[in-house]
């Protein structure tokens, strides 16, 4: 029988990247030697929208995700050769699949003021305190517009799945378009572990720890659920039903992994997203023994199939055996085919460098996709139904996050068949705190000043 069991996949690249100095004595000595040798110091600034000047990204989230191993095998800011490899083949120089440029970008003015060169060590500060170091291997210049265009592609270069030209209505394109032109490439090391604020502290589970917890819980198989939303009943049914896959029995666990970072207006605040997912198991809609809420720090690029690659990498690194993918995965607008992610995982997308499914290419992923279609409310079946089972497509009533946002904004409590009352309570809890149920300009400004973390004193 055990031959039929699935094994937990190895981390992407074979080994978890862990570039965090956890011993504070060593960290202090490290910092002292940097100070003695007069290492240059750079204070992280949020990336601002290239036109509107509002925050769209904070590179600290990428440093955290790299150093704690979420993005294994990436170890730092990419060199020009690595960047070219990612843009042209979606592969790191080592041959492992990776979808996005990960870059430490600074302005020309800051570059001049820092006076750094290749071979230097840079102390990176966050909120005025030492946070990480960057060992600079290469310094080069990029054209942010070209970077943005090449990152996502176009209907001409990626005709299989790209339907519209990317522009400044696409938040991911805007993030790359808003990058500064000077790239400092090299490995990051966190020397001062940030302290997470509530409620983020209780959901922080980096890959090594997550794998340990899965072992403790006896989760041989675990399916990942990507989210940037508070869960409606359709999400709950997606989770429950997708988890019926597994090996000889349904998946032992459902790992909810929220993407926490700058979001688009109209999304829910990060705090509400995490606690609303927690409410699903607290209220018993899914047993807490089988459902765990976690997150990854990342300013979402909304790159549908490309984002699904990153999600697969993150959740494989966290120890999941499966990943559920639905319609319009990590998408916004109509830039992509609605099932672009499923096309990538089922057939491949040659123009993105995948002539076969992602699991079958060299350097590909081991996590298994569980591609799901849709759930809708069927007034005939009188239940939440799966589109491939229920034959009442004429009568179907589709749930959507937008429908629920419309209800919430107008002060109408969503019916229980749409959103669980416990989940709605969480939405209202954070609505009361922020004076608004969704992400707005004020929340983004506040959040990017406060961040999810504080830094302890190190020196």
């Amino acid at each position: 029988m055990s031959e039929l069991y699935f094994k937990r996949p190895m981390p992407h690249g074979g080994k978890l990247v862990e570039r965090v100095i956890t011993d504070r004595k060593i960290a202090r000595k490290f910092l002292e030697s940097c100070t003695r040798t007069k290492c240059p110091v750079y204070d992280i600034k949020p990336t601002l929208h290239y036109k509107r000047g509002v925050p769209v990204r904070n590179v600290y989230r990428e440093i955290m995700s790299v150093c704690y191993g979420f993005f294994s095998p990436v170890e730092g800011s990419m060199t020009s050769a690595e960047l070219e490899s990612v843009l042209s083949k979606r592969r790191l120089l080592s041959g492992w699949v990776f979808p996005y440029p990960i870059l430490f970008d600074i302005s020309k003015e800051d570059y001049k003021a820092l006076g750094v060169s290749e071979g230097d060590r840079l102390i990176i500060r966050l909120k005025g305190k030492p946070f990480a170091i960057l060992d600079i291997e290469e310094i080069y210049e990029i054209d942010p517009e070209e970077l943005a265009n090449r990152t996502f592609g176009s209907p001409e270069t990626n005709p299989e799945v790209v339907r519209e030209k990317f522009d400044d209505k696409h938040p991911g394109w805007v993030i790359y378009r808003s990058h500064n032109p000077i790239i400092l490439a090299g490995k990051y090391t966190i020397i001062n572990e940030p302290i997470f604020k509530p409620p983020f502290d209780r959901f922080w589970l980096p890959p090594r720890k997550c794998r340990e917890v899965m072992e403790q819980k006896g989760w041989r198989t675990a399916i990942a659920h990507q989210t940037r939303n508070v869960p409606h009943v359709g999400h709950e049914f997606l989770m429950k039903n997708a988890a019926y896959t597994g090996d000889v029995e349904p998946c032992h666990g459902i790992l909810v992994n929220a993407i926490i970072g700058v979001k688009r207006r109209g999304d829910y605040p990060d705090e509400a997203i995490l606690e609303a997912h927690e409410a699903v198991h607290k209220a018993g809609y899914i047993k807490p023994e089988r459902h765990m809420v976690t997150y990854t720090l990342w300013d979402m690029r909304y790159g549908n199939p490309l984002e699904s690659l990153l999600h697969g990498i993150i959740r494989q690194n966290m120890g999941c055996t499966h990943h559920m993918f639905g319609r319009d995965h990590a998408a916004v607008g109509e830039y992509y085919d609605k099932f672009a992610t499923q096309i990538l995982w089922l057939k491949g997308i040659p123009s993105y460098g995948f002539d076969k499914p992602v699991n079958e290419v060299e350097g590909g992923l081991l996590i298994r996709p569980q591609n799901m279609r849709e759930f809708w409310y069927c007034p005939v079946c009188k239940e939440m139904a799966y589109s491939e089972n229920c034959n009442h497509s004429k009568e179907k009533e589709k749930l959507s996050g937008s429908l629920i946002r419309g209800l919430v904004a107008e002060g109408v409590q969503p019916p229980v068949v749409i959103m669980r009352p416990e989940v709605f309570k969480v939405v209202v809890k954070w609505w009361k705190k922020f004076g608004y149920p969704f992400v707005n300009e004020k929340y983004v400004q506040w959040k990017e000043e406060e961040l999810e973390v504080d830094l302890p004193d190190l020196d």
Partner: protein
Amino acid sequence: MEYILEVFLDDYRLSKIKGSPVENQIEAVFGGELKVLRVKVGEELKNEILKAFETARIDSRACITDTPVAFKRALFEEIAKQKSLGEGVVKAVLARIEEIKELAAKESEYLPPPDIETD
């Protein structure tokens, strides 16, 4: 292609259209838990709405969603006034676009939360 604007109805709104021809066009959805009016618009009006409001989007049901509450309120007012679900009500709302944008700007800062107990 046809796009849909949904207007959810609470008791107050139901009373405003009682006895009018649009009352017969009320749809009950989600097991009868929600009552809604649906206004259908073409490509041109859909584009005008998306252009007017940065947050507006098309969801998987071809519904135009995430428009400001002020827009939805004005849409209902026009429905109640014109007693119709035709494109004319949307055109009338778009004729008031500056007033709606002003209200929308205020509501993007604050929306009163419902008075329910939270932990």
